[in-house]
């Protein structure tokens, strides 16, 4: 069974478009996260939700909007995509200490 899953795995789109990435975890964890990993491999936290409530909101453009319909899902919607949004986006979940990462979504903005 896949613990943390993301869709799609790859996303190629034009500048200015709106896109969404979905994340689901079947571990029963209360906390979920979105990270952005740039070409230099730095893992930058974007958002965190605990039981559907936003608890971390880093300095992220408001074109990025997370949504958590329930504690097993945390989706990321991005409006008006820009070239600089190209990166790998990882979803993760945790309960106490260890964070479990999804497989990542490679977003390419042309």
């Amino acid at each position: 069974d896949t613990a943390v899953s993301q869709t799609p795995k790859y996303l190629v789109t034009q500048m200015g478009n709106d896109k969404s990435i979905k994340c689901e975890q079947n571990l029963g964890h209360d906390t979920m996260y979105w990270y952005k990993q740039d070409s230099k491999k730095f893992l930058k936290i974007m958002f965190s939700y605990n039981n559907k409530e936003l608890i971390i909101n880093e300095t992220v453009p408001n074109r990025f909007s997370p949504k958590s319909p329930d504690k097993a899902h945390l989706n990321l919607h991005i409006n008006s995509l820009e070239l600089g949004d190209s990166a790998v986006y990882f979803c993760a979940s945790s309960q106490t200490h260890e964070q479990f990462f999804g497989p990542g979504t490679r977003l390419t903005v042309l």
Partner: protein
Amino acid sequence: GENVEQHPSTLSVQEGDSAVIKCTYSDSASNYFPWYKQELGKRPQLIIDIRSNVGEKKDQRIAVTLNMTSKHFSLHISETHREVSAVYFCALRGSTLGRLYFGRGTQLTVWP
């Protein structure tokens, strides 16, 4: 927020040699220090962690040390082989629920 410094950013070692990656931090309230490995094109995965009441922990060829006085922690990989090549991240847990602060990563390359 918490600042985690990780060195070196790249590390090349010959197969069979040891590799050491070091991290420093500033938040004295941190009590959980995990290390993640990320192979090319894959997700980061936890390989070992250490808590504040322990100074050293070993798991086969991997060892981690923690010095909370000097705020240093390090990863030591002995008898490296090519499958060990990956990006390694140190991290620590901050005060916000479950939040991890990551170092910038070390690209470890093991060559024959």
